[in-house]
């Protein structure tokens, strides 16, 4: 499935309104904000339809998974081209099997869970809480909306001190930043799971700028944010991916690139790409494959991505981060 889908769910006393635009949306936050009520209302709607006092407005079907945990794969198989809501009591969403299933699914999923789902590459931008407006006094109508839990808070560190770059990537992205600042100031975490142990290893003496692919960092972001609160001296930058930075910099030309960067959800099919960073990698490889100078490979960068072009790539970063490098 592709696209951004606006969903409105309404009874006479409650209204939920939100957009989903990637294959995985995670819903979490405090107790008593209305997460389970949202699922319950949708489940009721799926049983009774329009006659049940619930109005659902969406351009794609909304399903609630409330079947048998042992037969989830079989039951999900009957749902296609829609948004599937799964409440927190289903443990299968943590399994490898679910991750493999989701990689080729043409549904979007809204998962209610506080647990980090390390098997799933979900975006830091698609983790939401629910907030409420209205008088909050029965029988006045209560309005619920989703709000992103992790915004653009880069952290507050001084640019006067020498900073260590910790790069989640171990290949082209790491190569690029190592080139910019030199070996001694750049370290690869060799994947998302390596970030926490690397920061502990580094100790508290260094200021750290962590750069990771925001498109797939959702399960790790809470740990990093907590670590930043505890330790201090950590700035974070989560672009969609390094390849997204290259495309955004304008050094590679191609048809529709600007539109793809503006509204990736209109181009990225969930059945083909489990997360957006995989799409941007495939796109960059495709756009440069016939040009021996620009040819991009995940395994390392060529001279084309150095010098002036490197400055353009860095120019994609917000100024607060750019000045630290």
């Amino acid at each position, binding site marked *: 499935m592709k696209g951004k889908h606006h969903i409105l769910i309404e009874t006479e006393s409650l209204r939920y309104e939100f957009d989903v635009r990637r294959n995985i949306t995670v819903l979490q936050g405090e*107790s*008593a904000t209305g*997460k389970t009520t949202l699922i319950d209302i949708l489940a009721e709607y799926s049983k009774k339809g329009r006659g049940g006092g619930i109005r659902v407005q969406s351009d794609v079907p909304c399903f609630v998974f409330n079947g048998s945990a042992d037969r989830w794969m079989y039951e999900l198989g009957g749902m296609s081209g829609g948004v599937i809501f799964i409440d927190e009591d289903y443990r299968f969403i943590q399994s490898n099997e679910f991750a493999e299933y989701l990689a080729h699914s043409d549904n979007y999923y809204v998962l209610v869970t506080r647990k980090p789902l390390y098997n799933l590459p979900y975006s830091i931008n698609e983790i939401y809480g629910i907030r409420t407006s209205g008088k*909050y*006094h*029965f029988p006045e109508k*209560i309005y619920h909306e989703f709000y992103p839990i992790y915004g653009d808070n880069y952290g507050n560190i001084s640019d006067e001190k020498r900073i260590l770059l910790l790069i989640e990537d171990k290949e082209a992205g790491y190569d690029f930043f190592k080139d910019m600042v030199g070996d001694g100031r750049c370290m690869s975490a060799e994947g998302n799971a390596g970030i926490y142990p690397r920061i502990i290893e580094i100790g508290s003496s260094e200021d750290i700028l962590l750069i990771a692919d925001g498109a797939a960092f959702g399960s790790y972001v809470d740990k990093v944010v907590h*670590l930043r609160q*505890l330790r201090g001296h950590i700035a974070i930058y989560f672009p969609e991916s390094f390849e997204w930075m290259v495309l955004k910099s304008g050094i590679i030309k191609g048809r529709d690139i600007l539109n793809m960067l503006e509204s990736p959800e209109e181009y990225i099919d969930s059945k083909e790409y489990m997360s957006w960073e995989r799409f941007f990698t495939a796109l960059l490889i495709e756009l440069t494959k016939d040009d021996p100078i620009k040819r991009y490979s995940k395994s390392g960068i060529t001279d084309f991505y150095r010098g002036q072009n490197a400055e353009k790539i860095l120019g994609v970063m917000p100024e607060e981060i750019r000045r630290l490098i």
Partner: protein
Amino acid sequence: MLTVHFGELDEMQYGPSWFKYNYKPEWLKDPFVQEMIKGVDNSEYVDGLVINSPVFGPIPPERLSGGLKTLIMIYKRTDLIFDATSCGQNCAVWLKEIGRRVDVKVCLEYLMDFAEPLEIMIDNENRIVRSEKDFMYTAMKYI
């Protein structure tokens, strides 16, 4: 004392489901349960099986939030180990208070913040932590 196990245990129970099918009406008469109903769900216990919710109006106990149902189960069934992951951050203060009143053990699978003063036994390491920092660094090793 509150004992926390980071991660799952085989005997771990799911609070909302336990509450729905096993709660005892007299639990709602307990002043501490009524405090938690007010503190987490911003609702008032009325009488019998009636709770007044600012969102839904009069509701039965089955419609309390999942986090509150889990807190009540943790407090009332200390012989069982519940998954406190069903409890949001706004339940942390109540979990601590339950631990001050009774000995309970819970599982936790996300990074819940506990403000000081605190005294929590970490089941995975068999030691007591007394600072937010110690609790969080320990949690991050397992979650």
